């Protein structure tokens, strides 16, 4: 490796390094333009940390299982039980913390299943005009012909209700939204000149889909993924609230809210605190999602 080539590589890496830094700076500036996005970032990080560190930070981890302490039923929020206790005397604070874990796990599993499938189908439909496009998009339309919650409920009802089945139900009917998103971007990019140029050069359709079009869709997809964490949790908790999602005693926030329903209004905290927890997670990711959208728009 002669000296000139070495120098060139060093200078090159400096350029790339400074460019990445400049790119990151620009992205951060756009993200932090609105203070609400920063609040969202903090809330999202708190939610994720709570979910990850749940077993260590929950004061009464054993309350998550079936055990009952009827002697300390319905205690008001106190030092010992910061959010009070529920109808089985279990510490609501610990169960809510584990509730974070279930909610975010559900969001993660659903999105990991849904995003690749939806995006790839959207890319194929967007670039391959004609029959395959109509088939994919019409099938996607069928899943969107009914409100998301209704379809999820129907699927859950047929399967035996459980957290896992709820995840499958939500995934089964959530992929069309990513197909439509990617489809619209791909078909608009398709008549951009750089895609036509790649076709005329003779690049493979794989290259065009994944190397030319996909990089330009990532901004919108990432925005939707961040916003969808909130959406999936909203639908998941509605499912378990109705009794077709997670079943007691799993500490799912929706189930806890439903469980506390019949003890209103005297023991209101049994339902209210898990409900506030749901709103907290969803709000965090919604604010963060808007920040991510700002990052990708001029």
């Amino acid at each position: 490796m002669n000296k000139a080539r070495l120098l060139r590589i060093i200078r090159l890496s400096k350029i790339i390094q400074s460019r990445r830094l400049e790119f990151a700076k620009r992205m951060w500036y756009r993200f932090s333009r609105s203070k609400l996005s920063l609040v969202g970032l903090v809330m999202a990080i708190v939610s994720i940390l709570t979910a990850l560190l749940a077993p260590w930070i929950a004061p009464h981890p054993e309350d998550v299982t079936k055990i009952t302490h009827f002697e300390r039923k319905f205690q008001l929020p106190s030092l010992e039980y910061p959010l009070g206790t529920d109808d089985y005397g279990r510490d609501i604070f610990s169960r809510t913390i584990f509730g974070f874990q279930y909610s975010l796990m559900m969001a993660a599993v659903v999105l990991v299943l849904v995003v690749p499938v939806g995006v790839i189908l959207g890319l194929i439909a967007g670039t391959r005009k004609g029959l395959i496009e109509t088939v994919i998009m019409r099938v996607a339309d069928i899943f969107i012909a009914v409100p998301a919650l209704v379809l999820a409920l129907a699927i859950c009802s047929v399967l035996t209700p459980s957290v896992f089945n709820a995840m499958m139900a939500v995934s089964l009917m959530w992929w069309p939204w990513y197909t439509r998103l990617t489809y619209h971007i791909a078909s608009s990019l398709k008549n951009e000149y750089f895609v036509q140029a790649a076709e005329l050069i003779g690049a493979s359709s794989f290259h065009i889909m994944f190397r030319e079009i996909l990089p330009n869709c990532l901004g919108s997809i990432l925005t939707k993924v961040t916003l969808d964490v909130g959406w999936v949790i909203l639908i998941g908790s509605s499912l378990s609230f109705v009794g077709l999602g997670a079943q007691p005693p799993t500490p799912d926030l929706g189930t806890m809210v439903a469980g506390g329903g019949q003890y209103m209004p005297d023991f209101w905290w049994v339902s209210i605190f898990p409900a506030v927890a749901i709103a907290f997670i969803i709000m965090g990711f919604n604010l963060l999602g808007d920040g991510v959208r700002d990052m990708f728009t001029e």
Partner: protein
Amino acid sequence: MRETTASPVGFTTKSDDKMAEKESILVVKNLTKHFKTSFGTVHAVDNIEFDVRFGETFGLVGESGSGKTTTGYMIMGVYTPTSGRIVFKGQDISVHVVKRPKSIKKDMSIVFQDPASSLNPSKTIKEIVGLPLKVHGLVKDNVELNKGVEELLEAVELPPERFMDTLPGDLGGGEKQAVAIARAIATHPSFVVLDEPTSALDVSVQAKVIKTLMKLQQELKLSYLFITHDLSLMRNVASRVAIMYLGKIYEYAPAHLFFHNPVHPYTKMLLSSVPVLTDEEETSKPRDVKSTGEVSSAINPPPGCRFHPRCPFATTICKVKEPEFVMIEPEHYVACHL
């Protein structure tokens, strides 16, 4: 009328006839393209014929909706012709680019009109210019790829060390188009379609890009199909010019005849509407035709000669019968009933 000022690069008046016998690189016969839309069928291109000779710059001029870009796209294979034939170096290529052999794709390329949209914003210049080299297997490994891209960037006067790893977003309009040109000549094609390459650029930047194109034509023996609506630019670039209106070619001739002795009323109307800088240009413009009326819709083009609604000399025959091509002088053909 002797030509004043420097004769346009890339066009040699003296050897004009010598080039005639040499076989053309591209021949287009009765080329037609109709698009079916919810409003009706758009007659974009109707039965046009022309040929491009080796090393020549053939000019296709016309306003928007004349079908000049559609013609360029059919030659490149973006659209499949409704009817008619395109013969490139003796080989029939009147099919969509997907169905064309890779050798054709290596031998032809295109430079698009809008530099901002012809480069992928999320890829570096090296990846963009390097793509044709990789697709056609002209480079074995990364070192050769780097060398190839550096040569191409130097050919279009872009210092490689400054541009190799930048993103299109950080370049000016002219520089982006230079990168698009570098990509177009990467596989050493023999024929390049230039679809209004500089109409999105400022005049000062346009001059540089045109000079680069002319230089490359000399060095790499390229033949160009130059599509534009800017007649002053065409005068300095093309050796032969054809004028299109509503999907039809109505006149084509060597450049100096086309501009000094226009025959078809539309050519005269177009020439008389061009804003010019010097009195000398003002006098060279035809004065008997003034611009009137608007172009009709391509969904149901007027019968007979499609220009008759706007033509000051239109007679009854113009409204009925389509004009045939007549030779006014050697190589100068016109389709008009006058």
